[in-house]
């Protein structure tokens, strides 16, 4: 575990980065809301209007998928170069390298929080009221967080050693995006492919959000428990690996 000093540093650096990001543009933190809204609007036009998906309640269906996906994708891509980008700093002061991705993870967690609140307000306004199924929401959020934490730490640990891994990750995410059921339901694909579809943790997570938020159903607990265990496993091993190889990162810098 990191000492209290570094935990303080992570929290303050997160706050500083959020402040700086808000101060950098005219409308500041409104971009955290506008950015996903614009993204969603594009998908709504393409898949909701032009391609006329037959899924009922397609707008909330799509929004839930996109909000969850964006949290996952943004955190991983933003933090891919976090340790690499900290090279200048780590040449001058000792900082545990794991601090760098953790700051990005927290920053994106806050931004996701803002978007999630807006999504919930929209769903309530659209007639999808909160029910007992909401009790499963914290567990689902923790599950997705653990998965993001693990994959993010893993990617940011590898990129300084193999910079090309950043591009591999971006392409992998691009492919995963189309196979995660963001604009289609798992039940709508041919049955003999469904087993492969549900091997994708993100597909399960997105479906669980829809179960909870739209259909007032409890999610597939077993699937979520497995994903949470997987996320926790990757998180702890990646965290330990970064800590153990902490002294190697400053060596990669000079060419």
């Amino acid at each position, binding site marked *: 575990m990191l000492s209290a*000093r570094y935990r*303080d*540093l992570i929290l*303050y*650096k997160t706050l*500083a*980065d959020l*402040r*700086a*990001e808000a*101060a*950098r543009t005219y409308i500041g933190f409104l971009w955290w809301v506008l950015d996903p809204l614009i993204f969603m609007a594009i998908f709504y036009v393409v898949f909701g209007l032009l391609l006329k998906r037959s899924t009922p309640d397609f707008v909330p269906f799509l929004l839930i998928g996109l909000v969850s996906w964006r949290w996952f994708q943004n955190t991983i891509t933003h933090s891919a170069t976090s340790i690499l980008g900290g090279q200048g*700093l*780590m*040449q*001058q*002061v*000792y*900082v545990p390298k794991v601090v760098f991705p953790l700051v990005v993870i927290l920053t994106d967690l806050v931004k996701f929080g803002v978007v999630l609140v807006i999504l919930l307000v929209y769903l309530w306004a659209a007639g999808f009221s909160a029910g007992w199924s909401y009790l499963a929401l914290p567990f689902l959020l923790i599950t997705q967080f653990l998965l993001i934490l693990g994959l993010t730490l893993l990617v940011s640990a590898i990129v300084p050693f193999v910079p090309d891994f950043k591009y591999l990750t971006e392409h992998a995410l691009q492919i995963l995006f189309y196979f995660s059921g963001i604009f289609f339901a798992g039940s709508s694909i041919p049955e003999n492919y469904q087993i492969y579809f549900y091997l994708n943790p993100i597909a399960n997570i997105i479906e669980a959000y829809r179960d909870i938020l739209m259909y007032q159903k409890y999610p597939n607990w077993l699937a979520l428990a497995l994903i949470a265990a997987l996320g926790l496993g990757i998180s702890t091993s990646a965290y330990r690996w970064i800590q153990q190889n902490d*002294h190697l990162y*400053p*060596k*990669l*810098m*000079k*060419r």
Partner: protein
Amino acid sequence: MSKQLALSLRNVGTFYWRQAGYLRKERFWALKDVSFDLYHGESLGVIGRNGAGKSTLLQVLAGILRPDQGELINHGVQAALLSLQIGFVPYLTGRQNALLSGMLIGLHRKEVIEKMGDIQSFSELGDFFDQPISTYSSGMKARLGFSVAFQLDPDVLLIDEVLGVGDSDFRRKSSEVMQDKIRSDKTIVLVSHSAKTIRNLCDRAVWIEEGVSRAYGDTAEVLGLYEEQLAVKS
């Protein structure tokens, strides 16, 4: 002067990885064989030409790099590099940057907040202290950077070349407080390629050449050897 050991280096070597063509990295030994002792209360000068490994040596002493061979023995001290403008974020105010930078160089959040008054007055930034540093001139940034870094008071302070910074008046002021600090009882390692600076400020000196400690001991003696060798080469 009490002769209590602070840090000891025994045949220390450190390498970097550098890119050697496509998909290949090779080891570059920035330090090969460095040995000396640092005692409490002394000011030790490190002299050597550019690229001799002086800055890498400070990184090893600061715990940023681990020795890959030989041994660094820490006799229970905390050593830190004097680092200016660490982690500055352009869109934040001077005060916010002082807190962030102070925490990065090794202070606790509370300590920085306690010292905020000193930082503000030393930096002479006045009202600008609460303005984003993107509105600062480079001289103002240097003033803020120095005022924060100077608050750090580790057992062993490591200084890489910089004594005074900023525009002329502040340069004089910062250089003076720095020199006072070096001449005080503080344990200091000062890196410089200027023999004059080291002669003025240091009790003892180490001469580093191509990653190897060539001479170590009394300042006048070490500098004599260093200058002799410079004269031969030129």
